[in-house]
């Protein structure tokens, strides 16, 4: 590594800066890339997802749009079918319901329904997650809802490094990509992030391929599979468990579609214990899928299974209740202990 590379890699960025850097790079390289959404221009994105881009690229390429998600997400589909590469932001993922037909029946299916004659190279970005008491309509992750319906790749970064590489890949991908960033990880001034997501990020471009989970911590005693904010909570839990001699492996899925089942299965073959953690509703979602996929192919390896997720209730407002239902590191810790003792 040259000295300059060394310096670059020592440079730490927040997750939002890393995302913006990838977007800006791709916009410089390719005139067909543009960004549209509510409050993405002058405001710079409610969650800093476009901070500074208006100044460089102007209103034609960093476009504010009316509060009409069906129209503008659908317009992104149409522009993508013409060969442009729109990035369209849904401010909170919770708003998907006002535009879901364009998302799942058009964006995600037009490639298949046309037998590959058209394709839809767009990125749909959205903020996800709770932990700041924004209640039932502004705190969801909805990971499972998007991952369940075919035709979208689903990306969930947990660190600045991953966020940048995955964003480069998302914009270059010729298929629709749903890129879900957790508000709590962005490093927004008014919502302090935990330490983990701010990482060294190289200045140059790089891609992280979809479908490659990342082992964020190696361990022998239990496999914790998770993503997004909960990668950091799982790492915290793993540190606490290590003090008691329980050595947990933490796998960050990074993408739900495609899903890297291989990395999961290998880990479970080693540990025999599977704990799946996410911030989505528990039933009929991510946790079930991961467990089923291991049960299908590696039942013999499995000695214990636990899941930790939001217990099938809408997200409550008041702090004691939100804290109760959003899994924290202690919830993860006790689930790993249960699995370990089983």
């Amino acid at each position, binding site marked *: 590594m040259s000295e300059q590379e060394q310096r670059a890699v020592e440079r730490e960025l927040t997750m939002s800066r890393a995302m913006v850097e990838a977007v800006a790079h791709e916009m410089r390289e390719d005139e067909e890339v543009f960004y549209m959404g*509510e*409050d993405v*221009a*002058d*405001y710079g994105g*409610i969650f800093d997802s476009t901070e500074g881009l208006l100044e460089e690229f102007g209103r034609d390429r960093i476009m*504010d*749009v*009316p*509060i*009409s998600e*069906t*129209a503008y997400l659908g317009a992104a589909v149409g522009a993508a079918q013409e060969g442009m590469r729109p990035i369209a932001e849904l401010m909170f993922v*919770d*708003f998907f*319901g*006002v535009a879901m037909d364009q998302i799942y029946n058009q964006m995600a299916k037009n490639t298949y329904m046309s037998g590959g004659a058209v394709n839809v190279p767009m990125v749909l970005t959205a903020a996800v997650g709770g*932990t*700041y*008491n*924004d*209640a*039932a*309509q*502004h705190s969801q992750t909805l990971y499972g809802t998007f991952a369940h319906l075919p035709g979208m790749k689903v990306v969930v970064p947990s660190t600045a490094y991953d966020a940048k590489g995955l964003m480069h890949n998302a914009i270059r991908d010729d298929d629709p990509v749903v890129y879900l960033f957790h508000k709590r990880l962005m490093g927004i*001034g*008014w*919502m*302090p992030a935990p330490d983990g997501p701010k990482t060294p990020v190289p200045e140059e471009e790089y891609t992280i391929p979809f479908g490659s989970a990342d082992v964020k911590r190696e361990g022998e005693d239990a496999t914790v599979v998770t993503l997004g904010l909960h990668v950091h*909570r799982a790492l915290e839990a793993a540190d606490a468990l290590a003090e008691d001699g329980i050595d947990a492996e933490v796998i960050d899925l990074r993408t739900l579609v495609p899903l890297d089942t291989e990395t999961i299965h290998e880990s479970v073959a080693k540990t025999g214990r599977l704990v799946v953690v996410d911030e989505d509703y*528990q*039933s009929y979602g991510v946790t079930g899928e991961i467990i089923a996929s291991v049960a299908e192919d590696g039942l013999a390896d499995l000695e214990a299974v*636990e899941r*930790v997720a939001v*217990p*099938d*209730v*809408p997200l*409550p*407002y*008041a*702090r*004691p*209740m*939100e*804290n*109760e*239902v*959003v899994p*924290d*590191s*202690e*919830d993860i*810790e*006790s*689930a790993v*202990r*249960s699995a370990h003792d089983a």
Partner: protein
Amino acid sequence: MFEEMATARYYEERLQEEYLEGKQPAFDISAGPIPGELHLAAGQEAAAAGVCRHLRDDDTVTAPHRPHHVAIAKGVDLKRMTAEIFGRESGLSSGKGGHMHLFDPDAGFACSGIIAQGCPPAVGAGLAAKKRNEDSVAVAFLGEGAISQGAFLESLNLAAVQQLPVVFVIEDNDWAISMPKERVTDVADGSRRAGGFDMPGVRVDYDDATAVYDAAKEAVGRARAGNGPTLLEVQVHRRMGHFMGDPESYRPDEDVAAAEQRDSIERLADDLRSEGVEDDELEAIREEARERVDEAIEWAKEQPEPDPDAAYEDVFVNPPSGVTAQEPDHELAGGDD
């Protein structure tokens, strides 16, 4: 109207204080006595008061993410609403809903935090009234940024074709977060949307409570008489940012200054004085409003926080026997992250 407006204004100022105080020294949305986001409406009181003055308890109002001034005008229980905003057990929703999700069925009041999504349920309340042959009406409030959302536009059509007793009220403060009205629609007068559905549309060009009162009288009267819906737009001037913590760097200084000059409460006070109301009387109303608000805030802050386990209740009113929301079966640490 003066009373509701004075109450709402002072209420918002007090909430702002409580909210921001708790976020010191550095603004952290998760700190302080009021959880989450807070959207205040100081400066918009005329729209709510002028319309709700014509409403009864059995009329239904739906409000958007910025609901307090409407709730106060509609007669929502101030103490329990405040307790809800502070996330307390005795709040309207036992602390589950929060400031964007205030429900007071006794006062005929509900909210939604999703743009324009209060409109269809208001249409449904109007439909219920019509089916039951009752003369109650429903009013949906929304911001000018919401008039391009399908839920609103579809609702206009459904209310019109079924001739339902519904009034749609657009509070036009010129801004949808950082987006000025002219960036998001070509129609400066949002009430023009009504024409495409053969519905009357009226705009009150200045946040003059008396003018709103007069326009709303006609609209609510039309609905109550069974003559169908109306779309009403009211120009308002919000004195605060989109949400607390919003730096409003997108908003020109002149615009902020203009909003501060156009004080609809002062204007109504002038109107009342010219009708012979004494200054003392107005001051007495203000004083009473302050007392009521201070009392509600004091009361709310004394209320207990909800039990963490209450989170598992109220998903259903008929929970399936033996099945509640899934409590994790491993030991639960919860409640303290």
